[in-house]
């Protein structure tokens, strides 16, 4: 089955026999899942159950932006059987869980289908628990559907049960008039009234009879008269009882007709339309000042459609802005400005402000990658821990505390972890920040009164990687804030990585509560590079500088005791720069001479200084053979 777009509330004729059902259906459509859940509608065939269900479906799809699915019980049973055979009933359940309003027609066929009833009960329970609306129709009351699970009956009866009776004279007349108008058919006076008097049991029969009259008149080329109606309809009319139309005084009826015509003439349709739109948007929780002002004015807008489109566009924009703002600052949720298209500018300003205040904290530098990090015996424990963290954030090692002397690669590894985590959860979400910057930001936030926003930035982060933690020592307020941020992130299952030049226990001025937390995960050290690592590092950095090192060179260089990677980089730079200054190739001899200053000649000494001082790297600035070397003068030659 599918929802017929032609079956809507506005073309459902309401009379005394279906007033309650129509009102209940309307209420359900206006607030799916909130009232009368489930709604159970029963009636004989052809009295409008499917029309009402389709009207609900069309309304929620078009006006509420929610999904609706109309299925007959047969279809649902087939689906259930297939799912049970394939063992995919959970998948089926999940599919129905995506539906905003589930409309099930003809549930009287449930009789005896125990297994189907059990699955149906399961679907109903899940949908209702999730606030989704269910509407069910049947051709008989619930109590008359035999052999149904008691639990299912209780569930179905838990909302509202309404019935639709056979249409009365007025309803039949309204239906007939509406159909005639829709089909552009005109009868002689009294014909439709005569048909309306026949007490058909359902609307389908009534419309069938009307179609027969229309066909007879159209094909026969003769205008029907009231006394021909029964003869044309034959048996279907002869056996039916006739209703006596209610006596309406001729004067009052004529008065009503003329008043109706006057109202239709004088009521402004654009105002009606506008007031309906106002009702709808008020129901959605939006202020409608923009529309109300137009409604109160005497002049119709140039284009009502354009006005309504503009309003809807403003609402869409407000919804979008609200979504963004709430992501940045949950405290601004439900702000009045997001419910009033007249205040769109204010809402935009809120977003701008939230964006300004809630820009993500600094992330990891892309320059430091895991691939670019050389692993050796002196750092392999830290690297393994880092790899484990990237593989399973907040798993075994949370927090990870890396300590070691300056220049051994802590910052590189920290950023590499950050990049690894960011590739999983987005770069903006990972905070990788030097502790000094952390302190400076806090001070600025305190000065500007934005501490809460500052906290929120870090609390929203997917991970916090804090470098040079030793800088928070002795800073009580920073430690206080770090403590709370740490706790919040840890509680949320976020990864924390800290780096320092010494282990937590040696950080004087660090509060015990922080120290204990830092030590609560894994504390690893990174030491000065050992010989194999030094050899690899020298080889790598010399190659980076365009020098292909020989084994002899690497053997010599790796024998040197260096404290850090940074020092290795410095030596490599120095060798290459000196060779360039001296305009000689890099050889083992040159390296030995360069790194053993006792054997160096004065020119090499100058070259050495030039290599170590960036100023000297610009040759144009150096006067090599100055008249008085004791008072060497360096000046700008340009």
């Amino acid at each position, binding site marked *: 089955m599918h929802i017929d777009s032609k079956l809507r509330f506005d073309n459902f004729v309401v009379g005394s026999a279906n007033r309650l059902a129509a009102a209940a259906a309307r209420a359900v459509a206006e607030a799916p899942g909130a009232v009368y859940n489930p709604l159970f509608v029963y009636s004989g065939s052809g009295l409008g159950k499917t029309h009402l269900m389709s009207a609900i479906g069309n309304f929620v799809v078009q006006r509420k932006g929610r999904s609706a699915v109309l299925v007959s019980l047969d279809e649902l049973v087939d689906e259930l059987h297939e799912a049970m055979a394939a063992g995919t009933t959970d998948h089926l359940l999940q599919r129905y869980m995506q539906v905003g309003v589930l409309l099930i027609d003809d549930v009287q066929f449930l009789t005896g289908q125990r297994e189907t009833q059990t699955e149906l009960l399961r679907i109903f329970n899940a949908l209702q628990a999730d606030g989704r609306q269910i509407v069910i129709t049947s051709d008989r009351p619930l109590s008359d559907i035999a052999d149904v699970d008691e639990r299912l009956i209780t569930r179905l009866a838990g909302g509202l049960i309404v019935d639709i009776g056979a249409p009365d004279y007025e309803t039949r007349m309204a239906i007939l008039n509406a159909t005639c108008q829709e089909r552009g058919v005109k009868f002689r006076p009294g014909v439709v009234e005569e048909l309306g008097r026949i007490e058909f049991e359902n609307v389908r029969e009534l419309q069938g009879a009307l179609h027969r009259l229309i066909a007879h008149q159209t094909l026969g080329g003769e205008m029907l008269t009231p006394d021909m109606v029964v003869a044309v309809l034959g048996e279907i009319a002869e056996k039916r009882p006739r209703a006596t139309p209610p006596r*309406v005084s001729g004067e009052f009826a004529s008065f009503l007709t003329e*008043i109706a015509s006057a*109202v239709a*003439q*004088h*009521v402004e349709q654009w105002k009606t339309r506008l007031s309906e739109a106002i009702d709808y948007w008020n129901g959605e929780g939006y202020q409608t000042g923009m529309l109300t002002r137009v409604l109160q004015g005497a002049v119709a807008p140039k284009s009502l459609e354009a006005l309504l489109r503009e309003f809807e566009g403003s609402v869409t924009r407000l919804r979008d802005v609200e979504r963004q703002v709430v992501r940045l600052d949950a405290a601004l949720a439900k702000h009045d400005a997001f419910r009033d298209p007249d205040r769109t500018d204010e809402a935009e300003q809120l977003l701008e402000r939230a964006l300004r205040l809630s820009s993500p904290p600094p992330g990891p530098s892309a320059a430091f990658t895991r691939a670019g990090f050389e692993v050796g015996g002196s750092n392999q424990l830290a690297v393994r821990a880092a790899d484990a963290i990237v593989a399973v954030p907040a798993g075994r090692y949370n927090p990870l505390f890396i300590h070691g002397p300056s220049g051994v690669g802590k910052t590189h590894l920290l950023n590499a972890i950050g990049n690894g985590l960011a590739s999983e959860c987005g770069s903006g979400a990972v905070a990788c920040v030097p502790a000094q910057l952390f302190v400076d930001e806090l001070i600025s936030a305190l000065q500007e009164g934005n501490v809460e926003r500052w906290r929120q930035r870090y609390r929203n982060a997917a991970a916090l990687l804090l470098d040079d933690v030793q800088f928070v020592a002795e800073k009580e307020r920073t430690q206080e804030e770090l403590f709370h941020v740490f706790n919040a992130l840890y509680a949320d299952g976020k990864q924390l990585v800290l780096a320092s030049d010494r282990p937590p226990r040696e950080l004087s001025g660090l509060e015990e509560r922080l120290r204990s937390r830092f030590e609560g995960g894994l504390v690893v050290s990174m030491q000065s590079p050992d010989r194999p690592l030094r050899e690899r590092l020298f080889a790598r950095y010399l190659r980076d500088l365009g020098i292909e090192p020989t084994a002899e060179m690497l053997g010599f260089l790796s024998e040197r005791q260096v404290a850090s990677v940074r020092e290795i980089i410095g030596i490599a730079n120095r060798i290459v720069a000196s060779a360039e200054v001296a305009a000689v190739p890099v050889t083992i001899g040159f390296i030995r001479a360069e790194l053993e200053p006792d054997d160096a000649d004065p020119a090499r000494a100058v070259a050495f200084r030039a290599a170590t001082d960036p100023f000297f790297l610009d040759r144009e600035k150096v006067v090599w053979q100055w008249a008085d070397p004791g008072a060497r003068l360096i000046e700008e030659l340009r």
Partner: protein
Amino acid sequence: MSLVNYATREITCKIVYYGPGRSGKTTNLHYIYGQVPEDRKGKMVSLATQTDRTLFFDFLPLDLGTISGFTTKFQLYTVPGQVYYATTRKLVLQGADGVVFVADSQAHQLEENIESLQDLHANLADQGIDARAMPIVLQYNKQDLPRELILGSQMLSESLNFRDVPEFAADALHGPGVFESLRSIAELVLKRLSGGASAPPPMAAAAR
């Protein structure tokens, strides 16, 4: 009162039957009440004395059903015609959307008719309403009485209808003219909808 409420999609018209005592205002309402089908009939409230004189006012709510998507209700009121009920008349007149002035066609009642019409204008003025902007129709009731006792419509019109408003000869007891008057005032009131106004404008505005 709000004539058309687009928000709730309701049209409510308050129509006041005005005129001298015993001119037939309550009779108009009784006739209308008698013609309304049972399912549309509200309860007619009539506060009358033992001698059937209106003590305070009559009130007949008429639910006309849904017309063009609007729930349409007419509220028909009468005022007590006796001179000493001036305050009550003012109260009932408040918020009126239209007035049916029921004149007594009997020749000896002409003076009372004129006084009552002046009283209507004075009461409207007291409420800051320009009578020229208020929908009014005139009904010359009791035209069924013997010719020698009554004034003809032409003569009554010359005496009372100086504003040239719609006028109707009527016999409220038997019906002629009753619905014609009601229909006419209803159309005048509804016509005001086109202007977007929901109540008669104040005099100052109307004067401009």
